[in-house]
């Protein structure tokens, strides 16, 4: 990629993104516009994938809502994503946790938790 284009992208990257990984339980704060009102909507669930790099990077959050699996893809550097909170950290053996889609009941939201101090 051209250096000038790279620099353009670099300027747009957020610097305050927490180091969250696939498998982590997160709360994503998004800005929602309703008419001329703006409010914050929170979507919490498990990060099942992180895709792309740089300005294009996105992550998928999965949760079970009223017994139905719901997935949302968020661009990491979008100004609409105001905050990402890490609720649970976990140990995963996979880079993409798509197997959760096939599971039902308790198992569907079970990820091995990490009992480590959050120091990285």
């Amino acid at each position: 990629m051209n250096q000038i284009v790279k620099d353009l992208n670099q300027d747009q990257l957020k610097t305050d993104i927490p180091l969250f990984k696939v498998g982590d339980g997160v709360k994503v704060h998004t800005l929602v516009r309703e008419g001329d009102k703006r409010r914050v909507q929170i979507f919490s669930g498990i990060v099942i994938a992180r895709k792309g790099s740089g300005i294009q990077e996105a992550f998928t959050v999965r949760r079970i809502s009223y017994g139905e699996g719901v997935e949302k893809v968020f661009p990491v550097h979008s100004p609409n994503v105001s905050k990402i909170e890490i609720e649970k950290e976990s140990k995963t053996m996979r880079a993409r946790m798509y197997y959760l889609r096939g599971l039902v009941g308790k198992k569907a939201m079970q990820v091995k938790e990490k009992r480590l101090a959050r120091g990285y």
Partner: protein
Amino acid sequence: MNYTLLGKKLGMTQLYDGTVQVPVTVIQAGPCPVLQVKTVETDGYNAIQIGYETKKEKRASKAEQNHAKKNGAATPRAIREVRCDGTPEYNSGDVLDVTKFEEGQKIDIIGITKGRGFQGVMKRFNVKGGPASHGSMFHRRIGSIGLCQWPGHVFKNQKMPGRMGGRQRTVQNLKVVKIDAEKNLILVKGGIPGANGDTILVRSAIKGK
């Protein structure tokens, strides 16, 4: 005259305009020295000749070198002529740059599309082709190219395989998303013809406002 600059396609990326994501092409345009002014009296038509970037002096012919030197410019890598409606309002030696464009303005981009070589009719003209399976034995061909005794010949412009791309194309009414005068950048919404690094012509839109 529609304000015109020579430039270079640098690549595509995305930009957040407020909270909306916009796909943009990054163009480096200008500064372009005016190398020659042509008027009806001198040449029979009105035009200005603009240059872009520089090339090593030893790679340019004496004629090229002196043509640039006359206007105090370095030997340009690319030269184009731009027609003007009336008598050109520029003098040779003037330098055109990005600052004349505004954010939100519409511009046209003229460039040469990527050469794709000899291509079939499906890729080249979006002809439908035949079914892929069920023993059709008719996959990516054109089908019929005309009738029999009448008209007795194949019509002109019949879509057939051949060389694709590598032609001059103009994309009209692209919106300027951002301008960086310091780096001579224009960020334009959408794609433009050509590969990254190709020389292009940037012009204020003829039709759009």
